[in-house]
Structure formats: structure tokens, C-alpha cells
């Protein structure tokens, strides 16, 4: 291996290309299955990355090899075979387009099915969409408006090429390469993702949004998102996911890093409705995500998530409250139905003085699903006057599902004030009876009650998302009424 040079690689790639054919009608080149150093180098090469990036990936890969898959989460699943996944797949219609007309019509058709009309989005309340289809971004709108303000919003591979100084400075600072098994894997093989930089004192005029989806059979998706809000800036970022039906399990191990410098604010909202598997619990997406934000002085990071999809979810958007007076927030709705399993929650690490955090988590479990909240609130000895409020409510439908709460509270400072409360309940028969009386059928009544139950979180979502999320809740709980 030591003698393996880039030239050798170049040759190898040339011979390998297209050898494995196409999967779908959209031309896309996909790597052969399996993972080794060559594949990592090849991904990096493919994306025309500078050398430091290749090194960084290789370093991550070496860490990953040493690591063992974690088992502590309250989920059970068939472990993915990491050698049976293809680590790179990109829509092949290159080069990038200047206008939508040039985009592969079939791709546009898929988006339409998903209800994301780019044309409409363009006109709609100022949402710039960076669409990620099988890892490579193919359309970016409103880029110009953003550019005027000095905001950088592009794919991460573009950022690596165009703004290496920013990427180099911040990539891996919040989620280090060796943070955990999936983060290390992601660092080694991430295919693409979004990059966002808001300059000093700029308030981003529109909601930034990315749509992710998985299209290629057997392709793991490894997104990497990096959002940097410079001093005094503000940004609201939306992330939405949909995935078409697939029978085999798909792995998704994304890493999201948020950096809020002094006085900055980041609002990160997610709606996730990936394929949860069918009613027998067959198929569905594995969602093992590492999301973390770092708050400097007076900064604020707010996570809002609506999790309705995926067969297995393993996700803990966290805040490191490093700077004094910084604020972390976490609002979450997790719905599980049929055989879905979710182990989700947050970590609030209080390091600075007068730091505050709020956790509101709503879990709804139906069918034979398992829904767990797992959270950590840690107050370090130096975090004077830290304040935390946590509330975890669970709603159970039927006696085949489970709702679990595992909060960890660690306090090493006497001035800390922490409150945690959790409740578990079911939808009252009297509530349903009341609705029935007024001509609302049981299914609708449940939707109504669930909406009320999740309102605190839904309210935190930006308008467009809130509507979508509400619909999602209804769809996910369809047929859960016995």
C-alpha cells in the first residue's frame, strides 16, 4: 500500500469507471460495495478535494476501524454490513446547471411527487432550496440574493474547494472525527452536504432549506452539514427528508455541526419522514445521526425536530454552551408506529456562566413501536447560575408499544437550577367521546388530540414546516386506532 500513488489511483479509477453500470434511469455513478482506504481516497479524488481533506478522511477512517459499533441505545436491529454498502453515488448529469430547464426531467418529476416543486419554492416566501439528491447538490436557488449579503450557502464539497480556510477551521471542531462510531464513518466517507456561513452582523433574510432524499438502492447516505454563524448573525435552517419505499434497510449516518460565535443565533429545524418500513417491520431507513452545536458568548442554538420516519432512529442533537450567557434549546416530537424504534433526545453541556437550556420532548408511540427519550444535562463546576428546564411527555396508544425515559442529570455546581419532569399518559376515552359527540370521527379526533399534545413543539417550527409536520403526524398515525 505504501507505494500506492495518486497516479495509480487515477489509472485504477479510469478502468473502474462505469464498470458497474447504472441502477436507475437517472445516470449515476456508484462505487462498488465495500469500504477500505482505497474507497476513501477514491471518494476524495472523485470530489476533486485538496490533499488535506483526503488526509482528514483517511485519519477518520483509521479511527473508525478501531471503533466498535455502539450497543447502549434502546433499539434492536440487524446491524448493517458496512462492507455491503456502496459509499458513493452521484447523479451523473454534470456539469451543474444554470437554470432548472437543464435539470434532468426525471429528477424534477421525483421532486414533484414529493411535493417539492422547485418552481413554486422559488416564488414561495423566500426559501432558498439546496436540493440534495443522492448526495450531490444539483440545484441551488436564490444564491444571488444570499451572495449580496455575503452569505455563503452551498454544498460542502463546493465549500471545500472555494472556501477551504473556513472549512479547515471549523470542520470537526464540534463533532471530532473520533467522536463516535458513526461520526467517524461519516468523516471518512461523507459524500456531500450543505455548508452555510453567515458573516458578522448579518441577519439571513430567508429560511435556508435543504431537502435530502435517498434514491439509489443499497446506497448509504452520509451527509455532512456545517453551519457557521459569525458574530452577531442570525440564521434559520430547515432540513427536510423524504425517502421512497425500499425493501432493504438503508443506512443514513449524517453529521451536522453548528457553530454560533459571539451573539449569534442559529435555529435548526428538521422534519424527518423517511421510509419507516412496512407494517410487518420489514425494511426502512436506519438513521444514526450526530448533531451538535457550539455556542460562544451570548449565542443561542435552537434545535427543533419532528421525527416520524425511519425504522431505527438514533439521534441526539446537542448543545455545548461554552460561552457565558449562551442558550440552548431542544424541541422534539418523535412519533413511532408499527415496528419503528426511536432513541432520541439531547445533550446540554453547560460550561459557561449564566447558561440556560430548555428541553421539550414529546414522544408518541403506537403499534408495536418503542420510543425512548435519552438526554443529558451536565453542569460543569465553572458554570455558575446555570439553568435547565426539561419536560418529557409520552403518549401511548395500545399496550404493544413502549415509551421510555432515560434522563441523565449531572451537576457539579451549587448555583445550578435544574428541573426535570416527565409524564406518560394515553388519549383519554372521554376526550375521544367528546369529539365523537360533535361529529368528529375517532381517527380525526386522535389527530386533533395528538396535535394539541405536540403543539408546544409545532409552534417552534417555521410556518411552512409546521403545516407539513402537522400533516405528517396524521399520516404516521394512520391506522393506529384499534
Amino acid at each position: 500500500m505504501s507505494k500506492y500513488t495518486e497516479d495509480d489511483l487515477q489509472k485504477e479509477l479510469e478502468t473502474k469507471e462505469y464498470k458497474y453500470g447504472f441502477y436507475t434511469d437517472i445516470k449515476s455513478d456508484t462505487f462498488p460495495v465495500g469500504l477500505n482506504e482505497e474507497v476513501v481516497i477514491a471518494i476524495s479524488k472523485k470530489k476533486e478535494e485538496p490533499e488535506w481533506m483526503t488526509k482528514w478522511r483517511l485519519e477518520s477512517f483509521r479511527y473508525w476501524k478501531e471503533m466498535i459499533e455502539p450497543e447502549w441505545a434502546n433499539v434492536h436491529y440487524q446491524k448493517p454490513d458496512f462492507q455491503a454498502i456502496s459509499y458513493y453515488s452521484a447523479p451523473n448529469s454534470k456539469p451543474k446547471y444554470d437554470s432548472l430547464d437543464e435539470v434532468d426531467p426525471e429528477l424534477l418529476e421525483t421532486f414533484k411527487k414529493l411535493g417539492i416543486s422547485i418552481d413554486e419554492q422559488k416564488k414561495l416566501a423566500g426559501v432558498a432550496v439546496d436540493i440534495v439528491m443522492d448526495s450531490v447538490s444539483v440545484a441551488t436557488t436564490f444564491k444571488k440574493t444570499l451572495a449580496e449579503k455575503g452569505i455563503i450557502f452551498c454544498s460542502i464539497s463546493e465549500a471545500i474547494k472555494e472556501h477551504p480556510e473556513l472549512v479547515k477551521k471549523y470542520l470537526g471542531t464540534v463533532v471530532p472525527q473520533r467522536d463516535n462510531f458513526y461520526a467517524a464513518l461519516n468523516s471518512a466517507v461523507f459524500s456531500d452536504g450543505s455548508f452555510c456561513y453567515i458573516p458578522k452582523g448579518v441577519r439571513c433574510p430567508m429560511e435556508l432549506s435543504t431537502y435530502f432524499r435517498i434514491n439509489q438502492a443499497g446506497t448509504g447516505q452520509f451527509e455532512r452539514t456545517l453551519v457557521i454563524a459569525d458574530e452577531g448573525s442570525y440564521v434559520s435552517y430547515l432540513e427536510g427528508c423524504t425517502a421512497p419505499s425500499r425493501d432493504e434497510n438503508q443506512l443514513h449516518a449524517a453529521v451536522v455541526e453548528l457553530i454560533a460565535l459571539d451573539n449569534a443565533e442559529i435555529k435548526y429545524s428538521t422534519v424527518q419522514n423517511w421510509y419507516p418500513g412496512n407494517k410487518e417491520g420489514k425494511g426502512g431507513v436506519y438513521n444514526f445521526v450526530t448533531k451538535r452545536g457550539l455556542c460562544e458568548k451570548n449565542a443561542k442554538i435552537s434545535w427543533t425536530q419532528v421525527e416520524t420516519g425511519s425504522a431505527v432512529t438514533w439521534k441526539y442533537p446537542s448543545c455545548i454552551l461554552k460561552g457565558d450567557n449562551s442558550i440552548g434549546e431542544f424541541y422534539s416530537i418523535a412519533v413511532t408506529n408499527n415496528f419503528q424504534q426511536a432513541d432520541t433526545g439531547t445533550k446540554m453541556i453547560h460550561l459557561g456562566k449564566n447558561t440556560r437550556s430548555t428541553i421539550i420532548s414529546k414522544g408518541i408511540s403506537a403499534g408495536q413501536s418503542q420510543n425512548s427519550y435519552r438526554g443529558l444535562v451536565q453542569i460543569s463546576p465553572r458554570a455558575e447560575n446555570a439553568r435547565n428546564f426539561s419536560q418529557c411527555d409520552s403518549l401511548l396508544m395500545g399496550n404493544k408499544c413502549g415509551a421510555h425515559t432515560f434522563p441523565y442529570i449531572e451537576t457539579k455546581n451549587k448555583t445550578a437550577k435544574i428541573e426535570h419532569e416527565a409524564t406518560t399518559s394515553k388519549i383519554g376515552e372521554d376526550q375521544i367521546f367528546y369529539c365523537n359527540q360533535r361529529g368528529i370521527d375517532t381517527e380525526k379526533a386522535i389527530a386533533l388530540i395528538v396535535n394539541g399534545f405536540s403543539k408546544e413543539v409545532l409552534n417552534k417550527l417555521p410556518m411552512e414546516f409546521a403545516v407539513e409536520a402537522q400533516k405528517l403526524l396524521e399520516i404516521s398515525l394512520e391506522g393506529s386506532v384499534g
Partner: protein
Amino acid sequence: MSLKDKLVSSYLAFEDYIDADSHIHEIRNKAIKTFENSGFPSKKDEAWKYTSLNAIIKEDYCIFPKKENTVEFKEVKKYFLHEIDTYKIVFIDGVYNSFLSETTHDKVDVCLMSSALSKPKYKAVVENYFNKAAKEDSLTSLNTAFAKEGAYIFIPKHREVEKPIEIINFATGNEAALLLQPRNLIVAEENAHVQIIERHQSLTENAVFTNSVTEIFAEKNSSIDYYKVQNDNQSASLIDNTFISQKDGSNVSVHTFSFGGKLIRNNLNFYQKGERVNSTLKGITIIEDKQHVDHSTLVNHIEPNCESHQDYKGIFAGNSTGVFNGRIIVEKEAQKTDAFQQNNNILIDDKATINSKPQLEIFADDVKCSHGCTIGQLDEEAMFYLQTRGVRKKEAQALLMFAFASNVLESVKIHELKARITKLIAKKIGVNLGFNL
């Protein structure tokens, strides 16, 4: 030689001088194997994440004290609830002391584990209950392997024990470091009622490590009140494993008062194996210096229509560490469960630490489960109010602390014990209170 190896090898010697033919022997053999395989728990075990035994198990403990020790009653009178008449089961360095004890066989059995294990007339009860509720974790197994002495209390149907029973374990410190493993068995048959106070007390500064196991069986409609007073020297460590199995309509409450000791770990496990069961778990922890108290509770709701209430208050000063690890499991048959768990903590000093982990695992839908956990300080406004009225700061603090702990104290049913604990709290906080609670 590590303590684990020492224990495993001394089991062979232990086998020689106990009755190896008894049916208990098989249980012992199995238990020592479990311990041998798993060893002492380490911080890598999720249940022991916040409590390390390393400092405790590195001592060279004497496992079988060589001679029988005695103490004068007047030296230890203060550890008894001497204001009222009680039954007493007293052990000195793990050996039963008949002089200090007051046992009975009159209608109820308040006597010794050693006789229960060896005498034929107890055989049926022992076969029915011994080691039937205990979990097979490593420390419980260690105790089971060496189980030979402790309290044996059997209350037959429709009996009420007319006075409280005190179980006291003294350590004289004649050995430099002593390992004690008392094993208690308490059975309350249908409609029986009993009140028990348990205490571990070492009389010198020599190291004592107690790994105690208590099994409690509450049959139909029985009622048991159990009080644990943990106010030992700061050279003594205690691991208290208590397993409670409850049948229909029974009512069991356990109060734990942790003020003393170097390291205390309370593994309190409730198994609700009948309907309409009521379980109460309450505790007050007030510690300082480098003390470490870990409450690890489990309430397993197995049958429908049951209730459980947990209320743990903690006040932590100095370098002390408090851990609360509460687990409620509601099985899918356990509909209409009402489970409540509360853990409130106050940190007094900068270096004190609290780790709290209240967990709910729920598999049934028609239940009412909630838990709450708070960490905070004494209310500044309340402090100010008291001070403006001429109450000194220290007293004001004490008043507020009493108020904070009062709803746990209130439910203590033995008046004299309540008064005793109030005094202990006052002493611990360092004030002389001119009022009675």
C-alpha cells in the same frame, strides 16, 4: 491478592465448616460462580456509572473474624431506640449477641437466619422464600454464597407484631478491616403487620465494608414498614441490597435515612406481583465531606391496578456526591398503574456533585406515570424573610432544610424514631433546634 480472589478462595474454607448437605448449599455454589464470573461491578456497568467501588475493595478485609467480640450495653445504648420497648436482633462483627438481643418465638418468629437455615422446623419457609426475590447480580450473589447469619422474621397470618423490631449490626473494629455480609429474610403472611428498623454501626475508625442482602415477602394484604438508619462512621461503607416481593393488596414502605458512612449504595428493588399493591420508597440524604450516597431504586409493576410512590430528598455539602438512579418499569399487563417518582436535591457547597437519572420504561398504555427531578438552592427570598425576623442565618437554613425534608419525615409512623431522626438531622446541620417536628 485481590479481594475477589480472596473471597473466591475463602469460599472453599467456608464450605468446610457449614453444613454442606443442606439444600441451601446448591444455591451457594451457584452464587459463588456468578460472582466469580462477574466480579465486583465497575464504572463501566451502566448501573454503576457514578459509583466506584475501587477505593473500597482495595482494602485487605478480614472475612471471618477470629473471635467473638462483645460490647457493653451502656456503650451502645444510644444506637438503640431505647425510649420504647422493641425486639432486638443484635450482631457484633457478624456474630449474634444474645446478651444485647431480645428475640421471640411467641406466635411470631423474630430470630436468626443461622437457625432458620439449619433447623428442620423452618425448612418449609426457607425453601419457599430464601433467595427467591434476590437478583443474581454480582454483589447479591456474593452475599448469597456466604449467607449464614442475619435476621429471620416470620409473621404468620393475621398477626401484628406489637412492638417494632430493631436489627443492629455492630462492628467493633478489633480487626483492621472487616467485611460483613448479613443476610435477612422477612416474611409477612396474609394480613400480618410489622415495623422494622435496620441499622449498621461501627464503633471505631477501622474500615468496615458491609454487603447486606435483605429479602422481604409481603403476602396478601400484609403491611410492612421498614426504616433504614444509615448514620455510620466515615470509615464504614455499605452496600444495601433489598428485594421486596409483594402480593395482592399488600402495602410496603421503605424509608432510608442516609447521613453517615463513607460510601453507601442502596439497591432497593420492588416487585409488584399482585394487584392493588402499594409501594412507598422515601429517603432523606444529608451528607458532607467526601461522603458518597447512591440510591438505586427499581419498581417493577407487573400486575394491574398498583401504585408506587417515590420521594427522595438530598442535601449535599462539602465534597460529597449524591446519586439517584430510579427506575420504574411498567409491564404491558400492568394497566391502571399509578407510578410517581420525585427526586429533589439541594447543593450547599461548590464541590458537591449530584448525578440523577430518573428512568421510566413503560409498556402499558392506560397508566399514570410521572417523575420529577430538581436541583437547586435554598430560596433566597425565604432566607431573607427569616433573617429580617431575627432568625440567624444558620437557623434559617436549618428551618428551610427541615421544611424541604419534611414530607419524607412526616410519613415515619414510629413517633420516637421520628424524633430521633429529627435530632440526627439537627446534629448533621449543626444547629440546636428549639422546636419539635
